[in-house]
């Protein structure tokens, strides 16, 4: 028996390396996603023995029904608030911590840990803490406001306010993670570029930031943008633990609606349609960002 030819052996090794993960992805992600896609064109009820094809009805309902439309607009609004705010604030925090690290490594570590805490903590447990802080008359937030002579708010049960309250919690939750990413980006900027900029006359903080730091953070910013966008599109835990989409659907979001329709109302077909729309949103957003931002990233 002769040994297999080297090329064949190489091919076998490749298959052995890539195969298991590919099979797992196919079985656990792509095939179920395909089934969900097919279900989204039916009126299948969870647990039922039959279903009917309904064409695009589920999609039409999502964009014409008041509740469905609200889930879409709420999610877009949430992303529009969380994404930019979180990125700006985490960049500011990273610049601050980076500067602090120059004169006190210890303090910088404490700050880093403090900012990263919300990421490491279980969000459901944290949500309970938020609920206590935001309680209309027992909560710390309203009690502090009262001491300052301001009127307390019904943070989680005022229909006009609840989505912004959740957005603030979402920002709080993502800042730490983004800050760590920016810190890594900052650490990778070579010191001699600042020296070169100084020679060219860029000595003040803002000039240094605008001519050196910001362009060199390009790739990091792109990554942070994509990650934050998908994360905020996915908002679910805070909605499920704090508001259940309420009051009166004021904090209903796409992923929560997906869960509610599928597992509370048992409308698997409609829930499948929401899943597809969600998937489409995230995919488009990511593609647009990659295309647009990659063109402007200097540092490649």
């Amino acid at each position: 028996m002769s040994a297999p030819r080297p090329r064949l052996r190489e091919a076998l090794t490749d298959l052995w390396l890539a195969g298991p993960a590919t099979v797992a992805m196919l079985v656990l992600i792509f095939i179920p996603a395909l089934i969900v896609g097919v279900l989204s064109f039916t009126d299948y009820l969870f647990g039922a023995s039959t279903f009917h094809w309904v064409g695009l009805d589920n999609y039409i309902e999502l964009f014409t029904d008041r509740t469905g439309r609200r889930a879409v607009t709420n999610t877009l609004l949430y992303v529009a608030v969380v994404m930019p705010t979180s990125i700006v604030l985490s960049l500011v925090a990273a610049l601050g911590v980076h500067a602090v690290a120059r004169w006190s490594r210890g303090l910088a570590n404490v700050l880093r840990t403090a900012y990263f805490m919300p990421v490491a903590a279980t969000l459901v447990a944290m949500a309970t803490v938020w609920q206590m802080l935001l309680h209309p008359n027992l909560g710390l937030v309203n009690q502090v406001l009262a001491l300052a002579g301001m009127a307390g708010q019904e943070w989680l049960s005022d229909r006009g306010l609840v989505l912004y309250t959740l957005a603030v919690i979402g920002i709080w939750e993502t800042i730490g993670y983004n800050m760590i990413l920016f810190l890594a980006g900052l650490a990778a900027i070579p010191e001699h570029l600042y020296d070169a900029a100084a020679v060219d006359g860029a000595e003040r903080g803002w000039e240094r930031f605008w001519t050196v730091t910001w362009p060199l953070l390009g790739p990091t910013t792109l990554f942070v943008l994509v990650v934050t966008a998908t994360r905020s599109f996915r908002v679910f835990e805070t909605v499920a633990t704090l508001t259940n989409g309420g009051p009166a659907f004021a904090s209903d979001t796409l992923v929560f609606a997906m869960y509610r329709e599928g597992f509370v109302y048992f409308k698997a077909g409609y829930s499948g349609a929401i899943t597809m729309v969600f998937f489409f949103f995230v995919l488009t957003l990511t593609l647009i960002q990659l295309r647009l931002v990659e063109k402007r990233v200097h540092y490649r």
Partner: protein
Amino acid sequence: MKKLLIAAAVAGLAALNAAQAAEVTLRVHYAHPNLWKNVQELMAKNFMAANPGIKIELDAPAKTYADGAQQLLREAVANKLPDLAYVGLNRWRILEARGLLAELDPLVGDAAAFEAKGYTPALRSLGQYKGKQYALAASASTLVMYVNPELVKKAGGSMDSFPRDFDGLIALAGKISALGGGIDGVWVDPHDWRFQSMLGSYGGRPMNDDETAITFDSPAGVAAATLYSRFAKEAGMKKYGGNEARQAFAAGTLGIYIDSSSYLTRMIEGAGDRFKVTVEPFIVAAQDTSKVYFPTGGSAIVMFTKDKAKQAAAWKYMMYATGPDGAKMVVENSGYAPTNALVLQDKSYLGDFYAKNENARRAHAQVSAHAGPWYAYPGAEGVAVTDLIGAGLVEIIDGADPAAKIKEVADDVRGKLKMK
């Protein structure tokens, strides 16, 4: 010798057969382990002791009734349903709609004899749909008022003359809210079940009898919706979520918390030494009290097995769990009200328990007086419309005109359910 051998063999075979015939294993599903685990294990143990030959196997419990329903539907798809299940009283219709449940009428047999065992028509109605019995109620709760007597006293009221009509209640709650300092008078959830209870207090029903028309925008429905509006405007009701309201009540800053009687143990524990929680039955508003009903929360037992031998064994278990012995175990270990009339008539079962638990006695008396079905809207949109109703009630609390809004919600629901 040969004869002896044959005889022994025959006897052995016969014994084996008998053992096989007698040994039936029933798989039982339940949810809410924090409420039910002790009861279920005790019930299974006592039942097996009383019925040798029937073995009870408890499935790993689901976390809530909603999770339980999901789990059962998944098991139905995989053809792995248990033989019996404890499900939420408003959820067995989901299983019935998919044709999964065994009809119980052949097992019930003579209705009069069945009633004599403690299954009154009101109790039986909790598990009936279109005149057929699909479930037997196993535990019950209705809407009650949890009162903080100290706040009532501070506001100039007294527990001895606690209001028995809504005008009095709203006036008292308004006085408690007027105490200031973050104290408020009353809270009730803008939620389908609570709304159905208020509707029932005025003698109304959410649907007509054959479930072809929506009727919760009747004068009774408008009156019930107006209550939410008045609670907010005249009694200063805050817009809490359920958890927030329970926290406020436990902290002693909420005077009257209106919710399910099944919260009794939790509310007493929550209040601790701060004050003595007092349960008041919910208010009956209609003049004609025969029309009053309170939709009943809690659980029912349903049967999935279609195998005749298993059905006989499963029916034995159902009768045991919903009979006086089972009801006694449920009441003493869970805080739910019993669903068997005998256990209330015969003091030897729960006389001692009620003598020690006045709050439980009041809550449970209301169940036997006014228990009625918790209407589940039929069809694919059945669960979804309950959230539409809740959303409408939120808008009423926020200041929308109750009569106009409840009519609008009813029209929305009609559209969704394709009803009159």
